[in-house]
């Protein structure tokens, strides 16, 4: 969103000098029409309709009653909603912070000149990205199985006690965060690597002449130069993190819709899905969706403020 909003300001100057014929004047609409037709039908209308549903007590197979903003006032005092919001937040922190740090480190290593097999390493880091989440979830659930999982087996080998991973709050969220990290760290690494490659070599050379060591160079050149892209990956992983759904749904099947009997890893989108499709409370589910939407917009706004400040400081 940073780029998106700020780039609006610098939309390229259109070519208007040459007098356009009538069909030419309408041509742009023809080019965007196929996209917007599909977009209106399958994107915009459903979205708007969700807002409408959120004002109803809406049983998909029963009665539909207009209740105004009742669903939203219920939401504010619903402990399960806040539980899901808290879980979403903590999974986001656990998955984003290590992911960005690991990606930064890996990008740094991949940036080494004369690295052999550089393309092999880059490609191998993208393998998680092409592996389906559903398949990944099955594998992770099995690796972290209490009784027969590989992880607990290793734990007991080195003298630890087996952990009931998926039953605990933090531990189940850790497993989910690990899936997210595993899936996205390679992608993020490539983004950082690309950022690293655009830092001019002369800056490092000048720093070396000034006597700055490796760590100093890292903190005073590498990190500041990458700052925009780092902020960016934080923002995008926030938006992605708010929507996390498949991982918690599939990793803890007992019971799946609550991600465990104590709702220990139920995220906001999972709670939305449980209310709408498990309990047939479409109105309430839609209200959760609207709340999510508001959060996302708020984050976009914060992002906009941040990026403006960043621009101003340059």
């Amino acid at each position: 969103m940073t780029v998106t909003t700020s780039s609006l300001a610098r939309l390229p100057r259109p070519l208007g000098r040459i007098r356009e014929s009538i069909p030419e004047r309408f041509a742009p609409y023809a080019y965007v029409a196929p996209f917007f037709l599909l977009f209106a039908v399958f994107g915009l209308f459903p979205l708007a309709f969700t807002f409408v549903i959120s004002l109803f007590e809406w049983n998909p197979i029963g009665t539909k009653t207009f209740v105004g903003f009742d669903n939203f006032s219920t939401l504010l005092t619903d402990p399960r909603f806040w539980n899901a919001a808290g879980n979403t937040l903590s999974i986001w922190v656990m998955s984003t912070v290590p992911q960005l740090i690991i990606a930064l480190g890996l990008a740094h290593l991949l940036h080494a000149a004369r690295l052999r097999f550089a393309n092999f390493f880059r490609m191998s880091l993208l393998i998680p990205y092409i592996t389906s989440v559903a398949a990944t979830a099955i594998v992770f659930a099995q690796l972290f199985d209490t009784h027969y999982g590989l992880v607990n087996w290793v734990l007991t080998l080195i003298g630890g006690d087996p952990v009931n991973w998926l039953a605990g709050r933090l531990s189940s969220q850790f497993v989910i965060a690990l899936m997210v990290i595993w899936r996205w760290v390679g992608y993020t690494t490539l983004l950082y690597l690309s950022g690293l490659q655009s830092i001019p070599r002369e800056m490092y050379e000048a720093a070396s002449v000034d006597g700055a060591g490796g760590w100093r160079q890292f903190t005073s050149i590498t990190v500041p130069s990458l700052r925009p892209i780092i902020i960016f990956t934080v923002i995008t992983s926030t938006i992605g993190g708010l929507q996390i759904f498949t991982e918690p749904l599939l990793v803890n099947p007992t019971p799946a819709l609550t991600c465990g009997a104590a709702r220990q890893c139920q995220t906001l989108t999972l709670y939305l899905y449980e209310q709408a499709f498990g309990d047939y409370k479409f109105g309430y589910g839609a209200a959760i969706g609207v709340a999510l939407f508001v959060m996302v917009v708020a984050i976009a706004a914060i992002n906009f403020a941040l990026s403006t400040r960043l621009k101003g400081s340059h």
Partner: protein
Amino acid sequence: MRSKSRLVAVATVALSITAALVGCSSNDSNGASASKDFTFWSFTGINAKADVQAYEKAHPGVHIKLTEVGSSTDTAQALTTALAGGKVPDLVLIQGADLPKFVENPDNFVDLNTLGAKKIKSDYAPAIWSQSVASGGQVLGVPTDVGGMALSYRKDLFAAAGLPTDPAAVSALMPTWQDYLKVGKEYTEKTGKPFLDNAETSIFYQMIGQGSQQFYNNKTRKLDYDNATIKTAFNTSVEAVEDGLSANLTSFSTGWSAGLQKGAFATIATPSWMLGSIKSNAPDTSGDWAIAKIPGSSGNWGGSYLAIPKRAAHVQAAWDYIKNSQSPTSQLNHFLDSGSLPTTVANYTNEKLLAKTDSFFSGAQIGKIFTESVAGLKPFYVGPDSAQIGTDFQNAIINLENKKVSADQAWSSALSSIKQDVAK
């Protein structure tokens, strides 16, 4: 005020547009297919394909488009989405636990009385038939099977613990749940191993199905879940967990499946349809198992119904299938093939059925044992929130098993969950 009424207006317009859109599609009857053909949504894993093929063979010219949607829950959710605004199947299988939500909104289904359900009603066990009857008297579904209960146990593990292994002796050893706990403690003390797979299904769920009332008052149909029957069932489960009798393995999980193979527990409350599940999860344990009566002697877990959605295009073809495939004779044959227990009362005294045994379970008299458990069943009212309330209680027991909640807190935590779930 003004903005509110405007919102209503906008909402109404949007709604009617959608209704119109949806209406268009539903008028469209499935194109070219002949009137004898129909679509059928069923569950995975119950071999619905075989039933359908048998029907097609017996009725030349009929083509059934079968979809095995997923688990029973998946199927109910898909049906809900379809009913809300989509193409519905002509025939759908609904599991007992999912049924009350649909019974509460009977307008979504064809009232089978209009097709002649009254004529066949007397064939079926009243306690089971009544579950699909709405408050207005509409009949939504015909029961296909009932999950009569028994107790499966590992003969070898019982012998090793010095317990009797003969089904009659085991049945006599634990006629009540208190006896079951007593034997369990003995077993666990001797072997150091858990006695049952998990307390939430093998104890709690069974006990609450044996009373004459469950989560609702039968007469007033009002919620009444904080009662003695439920509390006893809950406390018995808590005791089992506290004494280490439960292996804490959730039914149908990977660990549970592995536990079956490795003998991680000695007993498991088994509905008739679960026999197949044990066989396929632990094929190597053939002959190690035997089957005794369930403590408390009666029970029902699962069982499904065939229903016809209102907007179905081929109602008569679907009804013909129901009538034919669920007739007493068909149900008997189905039981002899697959072991799913009939809902038609005439079969409960059928000699062939009573003589049926299962070699995997050391020749257990499954026909007799399961039929007896159904005969003892008392009808009670199952309401729209019954499934959710049951899940909340079971979750509390799971949390206790996972040591996420203490025994004292378990009951109150369950009650507070329920309060939130039943609040409108």
